[in-house]
């Protein structure tokens, strides 16, 4: 059992605040992805959980034990580093065995675990080699095997796939998911790649400027962004935002169209819709087509709506030309509203 609780963690580097009072609980065996742009504090938070960085304030609990004053080696964690940190002076075998040797496990047990994890990561034929004789993908496998061999309660991963080429990344992503689910560890995984986050996570914690903006399941984060930032960061292309003004008590004018919306005493709101959640034709937003990008399964159309950029994903059968005037009808159940002042969802 290794539930991780992050309580009021803050980190300041001189005058710069990297993390503001972050709270997050990760349940046992959960796969939690910290997602955010570079500089949002996700790696700092991971390093605080690992013990490689000291928090300015707050507590870290792992498996019901407070660990923020403990050195990394006493926290029951294993970690995969962004640039692998596979020791160049040791063979692959000794690299995977490193943590086991530190624990002074008997040689037989070391061999058993190294062989088992090497097999799991498909590197059993590389055990006698040195890091300098491996490709990036193979080094990555060694780094993961080294972490798994510890049979830890918690595995921390810091952008483990970011140094791999696109094809290899896809392959490793699927493999990691299977291996980690089978190992029954609690995982914190840091990435800036939203596709990686969506595909791996049980829950995603979206971070922005040192705060967790939303922590929820991938679908929830995608469908119901808690803040404007989440909508604009997740999704490719991201959510469309259009200013809305109050028409009546519970209806709002969006680019000339009147839509039912939330009751609010605000005069202005922001209307938001995902590009794939509009239908062409019928009653809808007036859109002038600027760019048409046929992508195979669908067509990406960039339009001008009320003087702002608006992207729509249409059926690939739709015959759309640049300069066309379209009517884009938002699916009513997919419309989201944001408060322009707080940037939070209503």
């Amino acid at each position, binding site marked *: 059992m290794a539930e991780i609780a992050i309580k009021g963690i803050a980190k300041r580097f001189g005058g710069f605040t990297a993390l503001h009072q972050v709270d997050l609980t990760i349940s046992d065996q959960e796969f939690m992805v910290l997602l955010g742009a570079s500089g949002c504090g996700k790696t700092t938070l991971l390093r605080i959980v690992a013990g*490689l960085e000291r928090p300015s304030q707050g507590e870290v609990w792992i498996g019901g034990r407070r660990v923020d004053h403990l050195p*990394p080696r006493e926290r029951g964690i294993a970690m995969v580093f962004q640039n692998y*940190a596979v020791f*160049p*002076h040791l063979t692959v075998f000794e690299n995977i065995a490193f943590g086991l040797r*530190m624990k002074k496990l008997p040689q037989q047990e070391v061999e058993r675990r190294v062989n088992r994890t090497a097999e799991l990561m498909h590197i059993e034929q590389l055990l006698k080699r040195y890091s300098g004789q491996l490709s990036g993908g193979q080094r990555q496998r060694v780094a993961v095997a080294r972490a798994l061999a510890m049979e830890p309660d918690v595995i921390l991963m810091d952008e483990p796939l970011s140094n791999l080429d696109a094809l290899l990344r896809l392959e490793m992503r699927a493999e990691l998911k299977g291996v980690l689910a089978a190992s029954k560890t609690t995982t914190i995984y840091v990435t800036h790649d939203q596709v990686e986050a969506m595909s791996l996570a049980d829950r995603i914690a979206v971070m922005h400027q040192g705060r967790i903006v939303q922590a929820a399941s991938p679908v929830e984060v995608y469908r119901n962004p808690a803040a404007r930032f989440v909508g604009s960061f997740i999704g490719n292309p991201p959510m469309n935002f259009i200013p809305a003004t109050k028409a009546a008590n519970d209806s709002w004018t969006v680019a000339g169209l009147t839509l039912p919306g939330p009751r609010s005493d605000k005069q202005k709101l922001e209307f938001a819709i995902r590009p794939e959640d509009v239908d062409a034709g019928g009653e809808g937003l007036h859109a002038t087509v600027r760019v048409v990008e046929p992508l195979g399964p669908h067509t990406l159309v960039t339009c001008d709506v009320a003087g702002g950029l608006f992207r729509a994903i249409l059926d690939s059968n739709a015959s759309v030309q640049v300069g066309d005037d379209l009517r884009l009808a938002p699916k009513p159940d997919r419309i989201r509203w944001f408060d322009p002042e707080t940037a939070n969802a209503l």
Partner: protein
Amino acid sequence: MHGKALPYLLLMPATLFLCIFFLYPFALVAFEAVTRDGAFTLDNFRTMAGSWKFPVTVRNTVLLAAIVVPIQLTMALLMASVVSRLETGRGAALYVFAIPLGISDLAAGLIWLAIFDQSGFLNTLLSSLGVIDRPVMFLGYQSKLTIFIAVALAEIWRATAIMMVILVAGMGLIPKEYYEAAEVFGASPWQRFVRVTLPLLRPSLQTAIILRVILAFEVFAVVAALGGTNLPVLMGETYNWQFTLQDRNVAAASALLILAISIAFTLFFLRVLRVPKEARI
């Protein structure tokens, strides 16, 4: 100008300089060492080895190197680890440690002479503290051990910094992630030092040790200043053969012996501390 020839042309002056002022004299010395009155002979080596001072000389030199170099290596590793870990004032610490490097070895010998001399700082301090009632002769001919210790101290003081500078540079080349990985995977600070720093520092250790060992077998001015002729060493004997006994052939033989020892140790450490190509950073 032909592009390929240019680098060689640029290296030419330095090469010529080395040939004229190093290789040529070296050939002359080697020639003198194995000849006497124009005929080939090994007599010079026999004369050198037959001198009653020779065994003492070799013993002193080897003993000095065997004691000074390991102490220096340990201290240099310790100092380099501390300096490398400093976040501020690292430059200042390096400068302070490196001060003795800027002093010639004779001057260094004289500084320590000023400490251990009969009217030196140590005697003054001890008598003002009331520990002794009259000056002690630390460096007299009867106290060979004290002379030896004084020389060792002076050598350690003078030449540890050069090792430290090399090791600090080497430690700077070891990526921080290796330490973090070792830390996460359970290594204590000492284990990190033994299992990460030392193996990855091998190239720098090699350079530092070879340099120091060569210098240790060439020790001369510090010994001359502190011990005079009371602690004969190889280089001092070479000097003696050349200038006191006016025998250039035996002096040449003696110089060649020092060279041979240096080469032997260099090859030894190159081999022992070799890093296989595939295991480099």
